């Protein structure tokens, strides 16, 4: 009589007909990906195309690399405004205004909130004093998986980086979409997603007794897109999280290559490494689906 497990519903969806249009490909054969490179936890700058070794299903590709800092960003901030994240709208709006000060005039920002449902508070627009951050409402249950799915299906504008930064307490209780479906969508998404799990001090104390909740499925979705999951404390979380996400993104590289020497159809596992002495940590999406 009790629930005992979750079937991977999205596996069925994955059997859908082959893609007619390539994920994050500007043209049929051109693949684009954002790559962040770290050494001793610090972003590595000054890399050129020759420093990157990129493999597509194990076959090395010839890439061109440009600094992501040279590309305009479309930033989506997604805020969990459910009752469990109760904080005044004024505080959230104030944090958002501070946090987007680092955006440039060519960048754009939009705000999505989620509680019972997922709502675009305002669409992509240039940053500035007129951005209506205080048009949010709060309260209700949480449709986190719906929000994730919706964000990841966003259409990337040509020549721009599509960055989504999501803040949540990682509780979901009203979604229609499953986490498995969101994970399938992430594998094909053009969006670079960072997730910040917001915890209060008392949550951390409870964790010490009961153990920390398992964020791995959520983390897996973020890392699939080339992003990451971090846990932040509630105070000033938006300034901290957005600051990190933007700094990471500006210090990263946009690589392009024309896939060669591999079959086009199906999943393409991507490998990215650095051809320089030293130990590097490279963060990039794990692959893409071909026609």
């Amino acid at each position, binding site marked *: 009589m009790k*629930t005992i497990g979750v079937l991977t519903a999205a596996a069925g969806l994955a059997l859908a007909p082959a893609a007619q249009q390539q994920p994050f490909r500007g043209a049929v054969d051109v693949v684009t990906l954002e790559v962040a490179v770290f050494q001793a936890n610090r972003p590595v700058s000054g890399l050129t195309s020759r420093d990157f070794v990129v493999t597509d299903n194990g076959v090395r590709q010839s890439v061109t690399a440009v600094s992501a800092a040279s590309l305009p960003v479309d930033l989506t901030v997604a805020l969990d405004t459910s009752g469990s994240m109760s904080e005044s709208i004024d505080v959230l709006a104030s944090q958002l205004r501070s946090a987007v000060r680092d955006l440039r005039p060519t960048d754009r920002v939009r705000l999505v909130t989620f509680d019972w*449902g997922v709502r675009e508070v305002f669409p992509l627009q240039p940053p500035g004093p007129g951005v209506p951050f205080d048009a949010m409402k709060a309260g209700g249950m949480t449709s986190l998986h719906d929000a994730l799915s919706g964000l990841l299906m966003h259409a990337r504008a040509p020549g721009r980086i599509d960055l989504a930064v999501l803040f949540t307490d990682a509780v979901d209780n009203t979604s229609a979409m*499953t986490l498995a479906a969101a994970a399938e969508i992430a594998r094909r998404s053009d969006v670079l997603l960072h997730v910040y799990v917001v915890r209060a001090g008392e949550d951390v104390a409870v964790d010490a007794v009961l153990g920390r909740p398992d964020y791995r499925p959520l983390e897996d979705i973020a890392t699939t897109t080339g992003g990451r999951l971090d846990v932040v404390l509630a105070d000033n979380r938006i300034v901290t999280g957005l600051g990190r996400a933007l700094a990471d993104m500006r210090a990263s590289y946009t690589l392009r290559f024309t896939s060669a020497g591999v079959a086009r159809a199906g999943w393409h596992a991507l490998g990215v490494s650095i051809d320089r002495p030293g130990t590097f940590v490279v963060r990039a999406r794990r692959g893409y689906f071909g026609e």
Partner: protein
Amino acid sequence: MQALELYAVGDPEVIRMVATPREVGSIRAALAQDGRAWIRANGKAEESHRRLVATTFALEAVRHAIDTVEDREFDLLLRWAADEWRNEARPSPEELLWHNATLALLQGVGDTTSVTAALNAARNRFPNEPRWALVRGWIAEFASGARPVPPLQHIAEIAPGVIQAYVDASVLPDVSAEAHLHLAYLFTSRNDPAAAVDHATEAARRTTEAEIRSLAHLFRGWALIRAGRSTDAQSAFRDAHNALPASQSAALWLSGALFLSGERQEAARLVDGTMRSGLGELDPWRLYPRGDFRLWPRLIGQLRQALR
């Protein structure tokens, strides 16, 4: 009783003013002591109408404070109102409306004990009302742990009484569509996609109500995913979206199916549309675990109308 007088002349603000969580107990005590006298104060001619005023006032007070007040307080207040209806010699359509609204509200809270008590009171007055069969199913389902669960979560075993309650309801024409809808959901959860598709198809065929039709097609889509029929599932999700374009659940599942099959532009357009509409809280899937609570706005609206 002054609040009742104000409510009787159509001042809805009075509920907000008096029905604070702290005051629900006082309202109950006042109605228990003086409510019947107030109902009868203007003689036989007005008694039935004033009874409707007093019991609807009690119901609205519970709704206003229900998120924070202790279960026992709202239970006792509603029991006072249900007992009061028994003083009517003949059950009326307004009384039926009141019982339906009460049951809708209590299903929204998800308290099976209160729903059971309210159902017993309603059944005593209206023994042949078909809707009670659905409420019985909801109680059995909720008590068994079969709901609420996330979509497509596998339920290994469903208590036989749950299925039987909805099978019984499915032969009653007034509630047949909804009974089939619940069976579609349960058979999807039990990983019996063929039965789920049959029930979902029946549910959609037997009603013109957009919320029920949209949910039926959504559940059919989930069952078809279970059956490995992705293309048919996509078509079912499109039917769900067409039946109720405001449903965010239907829009997201259709978008997901389109996105994964490579139709990314249409998927993105649908997602943008559903996010911009801001109607997520009205989604029938999100209200589904709460049974008849989806009917609450309509029922309380009809009750208020009857008070005029």
